[in-house]
């Protein structure tokens, strides 16, 4: 199991951090712990100094803020303070993850300094923690609600929030950004105006609200409002068992639904230390690569529709349709798959799985070739995509962007390569990068990633055992076979305990991450030993992408912004959760 290997390696990493910290004045105020990741605990007063040190110290260089989540410890034993703000950091140069917990002592009015000045990515994450937990970040540039609407009262992810409450939102409650109310010095000028795109606009693909101030055709200021598709995923998972969360994960990134489920169950499995048979892991790998292809197809296809190329959209939907057929044959649903279970898969793949996959390997490449013939040297596509939506490598890292977006800026960070899970280290494949950081580079990177995914699938099929279990046989985790349940009392008891009480996951916390279709998809789970999660935080890959959107589009035209929105691959289900 990977967990064992990691534990050894991580101890060294934690020890190294302790040694480095001992040379600084921060030593007395920071506590180094060794959980699944090296973990630092700090009070709010030293948080900023520590953050700055972590980012700038040449031997640390935690330059990418992956995630920042609030935690309410009201019903959790053994924690000193009620509120914590938990940040997950990544050092791209050292390829190391780190967790920093800021323990906020005041339970009535939890205040801590904002890290948005150190990692600009913290901006939206802190707004989310403020919205859901009421953590007040001092010095934050724009601290207001993000997922809940403006008329919402209270902080829903606090453990003492009563979930049944309803808050009416009317037009009058809509809070416009301050700058839209200020008069521009040239307000009378007919070319300067504030416009509102969305929430329900065909180009936003999902419901996203963009408020932009234009000077002529150029966007000079913009702000996005999200949260229109917020369905309380995190709150709901706290009241359900570990397995019951799986159908909810399908509705996060619904374009590549299965990758979410895999990321989630990997988190739970690593907390349990349960072993998945090789065949089960390979099937997961194959299907998640097919999901990646679908995701890229939809993303590029929809993006091209936005800039006026409808034919390509139809062509891209054909491989997607064929992949959906395969997925439906495996699990009985096209979109909301619910196929993975903690400990393996719900059901073995059909007998013709291998043949079906191989047929897809033959039918998909011609479509990709056609698309490249239509788009690569197309002057319109080039004019719309090349040189628009540009971000530099430094910006992308500061904004916390991962996945194809980051790779198109020249950073070869891919979780499948940096920390190979399942069998990715056994396969021969390349990480595609581009250096321009514009929309066209993102298109090129995604096209190549689809080919690399096909390459991975082919190799995975070659080593896929014909027979064998897809799930663990640990009946504390996986439901016993139905035949045994019908006829054997012991199996029935296991079955009953699993269904009625859920899997008993040992108390602790875990951050697990995989390469989602649009970046690093992480799940941060806290268990108190019960049948369900105490707290479950998703690190949605498109959240930082969307946060960066209002900065990327500055100086461009509205039509560039639409082209850029497409290449960000923002999936509202995952963005708003």
């Amino acid at each position, binding site marked *: 199991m990977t967990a064992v290997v990691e534990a050894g390696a991580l101890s060294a990493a934690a020890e190294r951090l302790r040694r480095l910290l001992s040379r600084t004045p921060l030593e007395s105020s920071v506590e180094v712990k060794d959980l699944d990741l090296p973990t630092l605990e700090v009070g709010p007063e030293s948080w900023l100094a520590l953050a700055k040190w972590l980012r700038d110290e040449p031997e640390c260089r935690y330059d990418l803020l992956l995630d920042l989540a609030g935690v309410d410890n009201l019903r959790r034993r053994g924690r000193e303070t009620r509120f914590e703000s938990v940040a997950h950091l990544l050092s791209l140069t050292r390829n190391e993850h780190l967790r920093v917990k800021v323990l906020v002592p005041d339970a009535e009015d939890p205040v801590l300094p904002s890290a948005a000045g150190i990692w600009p990515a913290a901006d939206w994450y802190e707004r989310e923690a403020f919205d859901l937990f009421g953590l007040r970040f001092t010095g934050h540039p724009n601290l207001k609600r993000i997922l809940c609407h403006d008329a919402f009262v209270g902080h829903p992810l606090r453990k003492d929030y009563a979930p049944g409450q309803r808050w009416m939102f009317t037009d009058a409650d809509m809070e416009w950004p301050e700058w839209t109310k200020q008069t521009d010095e040239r307000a009378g000028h007919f070319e300067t105006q504030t416009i509102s795109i969305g929430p329900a606009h065909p180009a936003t693909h999902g419901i996203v609200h963009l408020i932009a101030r234009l000077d002529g055709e150029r966007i000079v200021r913009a702000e996005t409002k999200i949260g229109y598709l917020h369905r309380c995923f995190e709150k709901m998972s706290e009241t359900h068992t570990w*397995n*019951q969360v*799986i*159908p*909810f994960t399908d509705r996060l990134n619904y374009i590549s639904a299965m990758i979410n489920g895999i990321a989630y169950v990997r988190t739970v499995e690593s907390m349990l230390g349960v072993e998945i048979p090789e065949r089960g892991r390979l099937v997961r790998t194959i299907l998640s690569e097919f999901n990646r292809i679908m995701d890229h197809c939809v993303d590029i296809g929809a993006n091209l529709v936005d800039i006026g190329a409808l*034919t390509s959209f139809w*062509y891209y*939907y054909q491989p997607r349709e*064929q992949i959906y057929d395969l997925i*439906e*044959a*495996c*699990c*009985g*649903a096209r979109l*909301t798959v*619910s196929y993975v279970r903690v400990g393996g898969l*719900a*059901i*073995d793949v*059909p007998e013709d799985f291998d043949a079906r996959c191989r047929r897809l390997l033959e039918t998909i490449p011609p479509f990709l070739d056609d698309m490249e*013939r239509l788009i*690569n*040297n*197309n*002057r319109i596509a*080039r004019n719309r995509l090349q040189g628009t939506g540009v971000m530099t490598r430094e910006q992308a890292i500061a904004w916390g962007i991962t996945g194809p977006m980051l790779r198109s800026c020249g950073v*070869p960070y891919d979780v499948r*390569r940096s920390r*190979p899970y399942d069998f990715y280290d056994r396969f021969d494949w*390349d*990480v*595609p*990068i*581009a*250096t*321009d950081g514009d929309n066209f*580079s993102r298109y*090129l*990177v995604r*096209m*190549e990633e689809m080919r690399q995914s096909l390459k991975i699938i082919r190799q995975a099929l070659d080593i896929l055992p014909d027979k064998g279990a897809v799930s*663990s*046989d*640990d*009946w504390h985790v996986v*439901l016993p*076979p*139905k*035949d*045994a349940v*019908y*006829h*054997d*009392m*012991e*199996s029935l008891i296991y*079955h009953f305990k699993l*269904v*009625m009480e859920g899997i008993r996951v040992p108390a602790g916390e875990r951050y697990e991450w995989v390469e989602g279709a649009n970046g690093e998809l992480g799940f941060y789970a806290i268990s108190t030993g019960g049948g369900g999660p105490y707290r479950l935080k998703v690190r949605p890959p498109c959240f930082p992408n969307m946060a960066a959107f209002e900065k990327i589009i500055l100086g461009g035209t509205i039509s560039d912004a639409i082209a850029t929105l497409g290449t960000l691959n923002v999936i509202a289900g995952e963005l708003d959760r």
Partner: protein
Amino acid sequence: MSGVIDVGARVPRKLTLLQRLYYPEIVRGLRVTIGHLLRNLANGRRLPTIQYPEQRRNYSGRFRGRHILKTREDGTFKCVACYMCQQACPAECITIVAGEHPRVAYEKYPVVFDIDMLRCVFCGFCVDACPKDAIWMTRDHEMAFFSRQDAIFSLDRLREKPEDSAKAGYGYRPYYPGDGTTPPTDAARMPVLPGSGERDRLRETRVPLPGRVAGPGPLNAPSTANRAVNPSRP
């Protein structure tokens, strides 16, 4: 493991004059699209689109559609109202009220068994949870309602009807070995595997293991074999 490839460097940044002239590229593009058109005209079956109400997609035997409640040979529900599916349901769409069955062998039965199809997320967890093989899913997915009340399916609408298997076909069923769709016969019953851990540990500590408990026989037949009759019952 392999390397990193720079795809940006593969495609020249600047278009050639011929490409910038635009018209030759239109012709090249049309070659792709007209090629698709002709191929589709010649062989309509490779089209991924179907003429929906007339043509229907052939879903697999695992499709998770409308639920049915299986019945015994005498027409009573197999369901024993154990509340397992209600508990397993992540959408909380199942409501069960249990009653005492007049026949002692059946013990319990559902007086009320409602599934709110508008709440249901069709995850199949109820099928996985059922210990009596009583709830299956069909391939029927075309459910439209005129009112919310209509969407709550009660016992009479959930009862398996002969046309279910004929028209829509069975969908997601309990997980059986093999292709996952055929129920095992008694002869082909899987050997009962010990759950990892418990039995092994007992074996190591040399605690005598209980033998295989005889099952209550074929599922459809009422059985009184290993059930003590409660004298206080009628």
